[in-house]
């Protein structure tokens, strides 16, 4: 189990949040808190880069849903990029592949 590291940077279209490590019950709150601290303006796009995500469980999915809520409340979009295969599989089973916008990598997001 790797600990979670979250880094953020700003782009012209909006903030990018990079998630490295395990997004699980112990660490998911950190992502929620980080995202909720971001100021989003209408029309912006929040990109959550999951390319270095090692593990994601139901708590992690909840954190992503919370991020989506925060973006929607601000009138912004949310995109998940670089989603690992396992996580994509889980998102598909629960139907969230039709709820989140998913892109292959952060650059094209």
């Amino acid at each position: 189990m790797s600990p979670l590291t979250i880094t953020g940077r700003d782009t012209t279209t909006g903030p990018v949040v990079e998630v490295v490590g395990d997004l699980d019950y112990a660490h998911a709150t950190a992502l929620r808190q980080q995202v909720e601290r971001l100021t989003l303006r209408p029309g912006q796009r929040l990109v959550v880069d999951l390319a270095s995500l090692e593990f994601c469980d139901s708590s992690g999915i909840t954190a992503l849903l919370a991020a989506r809520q925060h973006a929607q409340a601000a009138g912004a979009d949310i995109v998940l990029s670089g989603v690992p295969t396992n996580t994509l599989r889980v998102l598909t089973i629960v139907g969230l592949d039709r709820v989140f916008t998913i892109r292959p990598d952060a650059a094209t997001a």
Partner: protein
Amino acid sequence: MCGINQDPEPSGTGDGTGTGTNAVFTALLEDSVEELYESAPCGYLSTLMDGTIAKINTTLLGWLGMDRETVVGRLRFADLLTVGGKLYHETHFAPLLRMRGEISGIALEMKVTGGGRLPVLISSVVKHGSEGEPLLIRTTVFDASDRRTYEEELLRRKQEAEQARAEAERARAEAEQARRQAEADRAQLADALAVLQQSLLPASLPLVPGLETAVHYHTASANRLGGDFYDLFPIDDTRWGFFLGDVCGKGPEAAALTSLTRYTLRAAAFHDPEPAVALTTLNSVLHDRYTATGDPRYCTAVFGIVEPGAEHDQATVRLASGGHPPALIVRAGGQVDSLPTPGGMLVGVLPTAPFTTAEATLAAGDTLLLYTDGLTEARTGPTRKNLYGEEALYAFVAARAPSAPQEVITALTGLLGSFGDGLDDDTALLAFGVPAARPHTLPATDHLR
């Protein structure tokens, strides 16, 4: 005197003992017996048997700051002592001196004129007359100020050590008490958790005429409440409802969600047991309660109805899935089918969510298996990096097909055990099927831990 010997060796004298040398010593010292007594480096006094002081030397008078006239014939030995000393003198010193005729090295304190106290060491001896009768007491007094200071220091340290020991003992006892309390609290908490845990799941599956049933529930952590749920319950004379699912998160929050989910589904089933409707009701309840208030939470679930045929040789199943892995059907012929429900959405996140319905018929010897993803998400392999996965599960089940419900559950229970600490999530397994041989129901099994 070193090196100087002016005295000629006496020669011709009888004993040759050097008496000349002694005379020189005595002459040089100019000491009379009187002076030896009066100016001795210690105190001397002599008393009658009743303690009246008959003689006292100058040294002692000087220490006490007293005149000879005030003392001799007027005071008793005990009058020179402090009150505590007087008590000790009467209860210990005097009796011992009477019985043994001597006593030595007794520590007492004498009163000094002007208000001070002199710590002393006292030795006394009784002088007896020609017929053995006691006549008088001779006493020597040593100034024990330094010795007393040393003793007090030792005593003080001893008391401090004793105090420290007592405090350490107290601290230890307190720590022990705290530990025992913590232990009791922990035990109480564990009991409370166990009771709560019990309330989240049915104690045992009911007997369903025409069906064999089996269940297994694995808790990842003894101290955490479960996040998986299942149930099997009668709807009416011919139909039985069932559900199985998995809430997000862990701990007490997840348990609250489990509880709400279970009872909402049960209630919904009585209202309208159509599976997609029941899940829709659940979706509204969870969405309004959680996601709409800014606290998104969800569960995945399968809800269905099973109706055993009147002859107990088949059963129809109609189920809907909300984002949950598909059910498996292990056929009597040995093949394994899945019962896919594509398009189902996890429950509670969107204000309205689609739930896909599917149907199947179970023939004699067929078993339907529902599971939560603790099973397929278990980490395996030497590096624990790989997840067990659905393909592996299918292969495992297929290798043992056909299987009655209990056989499937037992085999999968063993599989879960084999994951060791690679299995770090709760897992629920529910299986039911139409009996292969005689159409009688096997007793429902209690879920195992």
